[in-house]
């Protein structure tokens, strides 16, 4: 059975019927967004890769029970991803406040002195820290909307909120990021 379509709704239906090519195409469509989301939630490349792997394995194993209800499969993938991230933090040993302090200090100095942005890695590190300073829902909106490039209606579906609520959260998140990234702008 071949799968020529790239419409995720069609692909997931074909994958449900046992079409491995269709599952492969879903992987190509969603693995990177899932990985990016996981990475910016756990700040660890290896863990993010493991989470993304686990998400696709779970989808593969439970695809028989998938019921689309006319929704974008993206929401299905990201519901599993969010649960995986929650599981990750549940299993992870708590980090003491002392361990976090140096990071906070670096964050402050980096924002204050633009000259310290010597390379792209440093810029990425500071951006990452600014994202981590957002609250949970703001962080999720920023990752889904600006890092993964999803539309407001897709983000709303994934997070179970209205598009208007997403717009407001996005606005507040950008305001916080503007304050945190003053040195970069």
């Amino acid at each position, binding site marked *: 059975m071949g799968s020529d379509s790239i419409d995720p709704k069609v692909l997931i239906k074909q994958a449900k019927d*046992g079409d491995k090519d269709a599952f492969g195409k879903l992987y190509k469509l969603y693995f*990177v967004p899932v990985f990016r989301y996981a990475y910016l939630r756990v700040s660890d490349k290896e863990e993010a890769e493991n989470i993304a792997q686990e998400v696709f394995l779970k989808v593969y194993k439970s695809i028989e029970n998938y019921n689309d209800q006319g929704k974008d499969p993206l929401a299905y993938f990201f519901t599993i991803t969010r649960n995986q991230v929650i599981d990750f933090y549940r299993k992870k040993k708590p980090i003491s406040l002392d361990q976090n302090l140096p990071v906070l200090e670096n964050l402050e100095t980096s924002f204050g002195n633009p000259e310290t942005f010597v390379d792209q890695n440093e810029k990425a590190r500071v951006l990452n820290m600014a994202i981590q300073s957002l609250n949970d829902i703001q962080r999720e909106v920023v990752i889904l909307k600006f890092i993964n490039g999803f539309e407001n209606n897709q983000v709303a579906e994934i997070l179970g909120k209205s598009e208007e609520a997403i717009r407001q959260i996005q606005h507040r998140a950008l305001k916080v990021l503007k304050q945190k990234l003053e040195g970069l702008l």
Partner: protein
Amino acid sequence: MNKDESKIIRLLQGLALSLTPPKSSLEKLLANIDSEDVTKEPWIRYIYSMNWKFAAPLILAVLALGGFFAYKSFPTSVTQLAPSAENFQIPQEVTAQNSDSVLTQTDQEINQNMNQLDQDLKDVDAVQQEEDVNSI
């Protein structure tokens, strides 16, 4: 959207480009899927491939038919198996009145058998001793 917000969005998009998963991810995933793929079992694959829209009513019909015949034949077979009331007698050895004697009889038999066994062993010993004496 003001100038600063546009710049933040461009920075975030730049960050996104730097976040790429390792290329080996797909191979790892496929290896994981293969190792956990229970659907490789032919009988599970057969069940998965069944058209349940047609198979389910058929299975239900067969079960209903079987149940019907079992129900129809059940009373007859019970009547045939059960003894009639006038012919039915409780075996004597299990009535409450003589249950002690049954037990005593059994004990007596066991004692007799034990005594017989002792006697046989004594006889064998005696024969053995006699043979030993003769051999000297």
